[in-house]
């Protein structure tokens, strides 16, 4: 179809040519623009080229009709929506511009003549309106038509070319290996990352190789027999393939996604492409993990072995220590016993010497008197003097005995208010320090028997003595049980009892138990209980012993009761 305009001046024609040239260049200039920008630019260009009062461009944003772009430009620069009356023009079929249609006061500036042209692709359209009554002239129709085509071209090409460009960048910059090959397996394209992976310098070098050359020897059969046929037949194959480094021949594990590219028009298979991910970092981390696991196992094994050695050492040490402990306890026992014996022995020795002196003197005096009396003539005064001295020495012997007794009980100076429980606990700790195995210690404390007025050291001596005796008596008993009981007897008296389940007392010693030098023990000096009695009696208490049923002995002694409040008084 061709138009001519009768009244076209030369000036008008020149201008029309210039505009046409400009419009023909638009698609190239709009190459990098977004559809929105193309629509805006198109609408503004039309406004100027057609000397129009309103232009409108609507475009499908992409290849779908859902997202439309609508741009309206007016000569007064104000924003206007497309008058609803014009909308009907947009429904015209594509092709030549519509016939002009007059719209009354669409912009409140008088009536406008409108003309529209549908775009070639999609549902878009170009609309222009003018006050000029002759609008549109034939030239304006041509210009509108060319503009619509230019906008249509630009807009329809834009997403493809633009996306292609972007895709290209994406592929170029991808960290994965991206490659395209012919159906015969000739390499067409490998992205830079892919070239780096397989150690190729350039795309040209890659194009010299066939796809099979990229695959490691160990995987070539599989590639040839499984992977490639599957891609050609089914369109896609995914899995692990070992590629080969062209320079070193090293095996490169990749996760391969290979797919067939078909011609969009004909649907015929064109190419095979792949996006393959390098698995070596995964492999390395797997290896590292495995190595770590292995070394961990080794380290655990080594450490376990070390621990076993340490444990053995410890066991040996423990055994040694136990032996040493046993020896120590034996020694302590011996020492304890020796100390008690030597104390008793020293006391006995001192007692013997102290008493021997006056006894010897007394005996001598008496014997001297006897010798004198045996003479026919004797000095009566001398005999009397000897007898007097002899008697005086006997008194001295008695005094020594009293003094020893006082020595053992040491007067009343050190007596204080002492908590009974502490006395008993301290004494049992001392008594059990000998390391008797398996002795059950039962403490039965009467809360009413809180304190006594006593010399702590002496009462501990008594308690330790009674407890040691009990332990010795229980040496052969299966479950040696030592029961220490405290009890308030009356307001002034507290009783402490030490009971054992030992062999009990022989009848021979029972009645003379607290006398000196009476003992039922093989090595006993027979002083312990006599000293105990001395101490208890010096504390104004009493000590006694009773046989237990079915076996054993209970020793009881009493002390003066006190209240803990009196301690500081």
């Amino acid at each position, binding site marked *: 179809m061709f138009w001519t305009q009768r009244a076209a001046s030369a000036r008008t024609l020149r201008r029309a040519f210039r505009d046409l040239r400009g419009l023909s260049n638009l698609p190239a200039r709009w190459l990098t623009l977004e559809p929105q920008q193309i629509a805006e630019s198109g609408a503004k260009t039309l406004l100027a080229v057609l000397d129009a009062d309103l232009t409108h461009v609507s475009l499908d944003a992409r290849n779908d009709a859902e997202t439309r772009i609508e741009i309206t430009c007016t000569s007064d620069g104000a924003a206007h929506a497309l008058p609803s009356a014009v909308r009907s023009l947009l429904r015209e079929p594509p092709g030549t511009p519509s016939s002009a249609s007059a719209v009354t006061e669409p912009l409140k500036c008088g009536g406008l003549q409108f003309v529209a042209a549908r775009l070639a692709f999609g549902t878009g359209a170009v609309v222009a309106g003018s006050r000029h009554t002759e609008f549109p002239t034939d030239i304006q129709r041509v210009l509108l038509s060319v503009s619509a085509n230019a906008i249509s071209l630009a807009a329809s090409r834009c997403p493809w070319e633009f996306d292609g460009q972007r895709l290209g960048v994406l592929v170029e910059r991808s960290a994965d290996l991206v490659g395209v090959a012919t159906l015969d397996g000739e390499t067409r394209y490998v992205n830079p990352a892919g070239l780096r992976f397989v150690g190729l310098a350039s795309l040209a070098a890659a194009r010299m190789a066939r796809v099979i050359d990229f695959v490691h020897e160990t995987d070539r059969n599989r590639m040839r027999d499984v992977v490639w046929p599957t891609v050609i037949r089914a369109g896609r194959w995914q899995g692990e393939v070992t590629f080969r480094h062209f320079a070193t021949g090293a095996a490169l594990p990749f996760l391969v996604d290979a797919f067939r590219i078909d011609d969009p028009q004909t649907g015929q298979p064109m190419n095979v492409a792949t996006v393959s991910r390098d698995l070596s970092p995964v492999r390395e981390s797997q290896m590292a993990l495995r190595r770590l696991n292995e070394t961990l196992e080794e380290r655990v094994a080594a450490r376990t072995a070390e621990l076993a050695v340490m444990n053995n050492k410890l066991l040996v040490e423990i055994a040694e220590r136990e032996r040493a402990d046993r020896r120590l306890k034996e020694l302590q026992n011996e020492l304890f016993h020796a100390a008690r014996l030597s104390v008793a022995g020293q006391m006995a*020795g001192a007692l*013997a*010497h102290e008493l*021997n*002196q*006056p*006894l*010897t*003197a*007394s*005996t*001598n*005096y008496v*014997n*001297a*008197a*006897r*010798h*004198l009396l045996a003479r026919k003539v004797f000095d009566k005064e001398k005999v009397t003097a*000897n007898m007097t*001295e*002899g008697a005086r*020495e006997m008194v*001295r012997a008695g005094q020594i005995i009293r003094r020893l007794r006082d020595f053992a009980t040491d007067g009343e100076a050190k007596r204080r208010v002492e908590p009974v429980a502490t006395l008993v606990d301290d004494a049992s700790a001392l008594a059990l320090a000998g390391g008797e195995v398996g002795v059950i210690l039962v403490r039965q404390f009467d809360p009413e028997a809180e304190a006594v007025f006593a010399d702590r050291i002496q009462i501990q001596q008594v308690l330790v003595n009674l407890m040691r005796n009990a332990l010795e008596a229980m040496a052969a008993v299966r479950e040696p049980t030592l029961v220490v009981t405290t009890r308030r007897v009356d307001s002034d008296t507290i009783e402490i009892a030490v009971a054992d389940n030992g062999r009990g007392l022989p009848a021979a010693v029972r009645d003379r138990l607290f006398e000196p030098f009476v003992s039922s023990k*093989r*090595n006993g000096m027979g002083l312990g209980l006599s000293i105990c009695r001395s101490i208890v009696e010096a504390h104004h208490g009493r000590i006694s012993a009773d046989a237990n049923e079915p076996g054993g002995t209970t020793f009881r002694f009493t002390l003066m009761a006190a209240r803990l409040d009196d301690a500081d008084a």
Partner: protein
Amino acid sequence: MPSRTVHVLDDDVAVRRSLEQLLSAAGLVPILYATPFELLEAAPRLAEGCLLLDVRMPRMNGLDVQEWLNRHGCHLPIVMMTARGDVSTAVRAMKAGARDFLEKPFDDESLLAAVRAALVVGTLDDRTRAVADATARIAALSPRERQVLDGLVAGRANKTIAEQLGISVRTVEVHRARMLVRLGTQTLAGAVRLAVLAQPQPSLP
């Protein structure tokens, strides 16, 4: 005529003075020393008599005095007085050359017998005869009696001896009594004296 002088050393004044009374009454001549130093000071001048020493004294005991006297050429016979049961000390004293020992308290007969025997200046023949006599008596003991005597000489108590020999204390006491009868003595001291005499003696000074 043997000497009648008895040098008495005891730190206890009553014992000292009672001994003076008894020895005097028995016709002997006691000279008293209150401390070892008094005796040692006088020792170089001592020409005759015997020594009656108490073993147990502070600072310097009877054995120390005996050793000092031996070293300084005073060889007067010594009778040692010990506490009862202090047998090991008595044995040491005997081995160091003491004539006899007495356990306090002692009766006058034991004392006077020991002192008079010491005052008889012993000749080598006397000593030899005493050793032969002791050896013969000891040899007459049964093995068990000999073991009990050895234990006593070593200063052990009946109880300890019983334990060592694996017999009862009662049996030890029986052996001991029979052993004393066979040795012709009534005291442990006498038995110990014989036992020590029968043993090989150190060379006397």
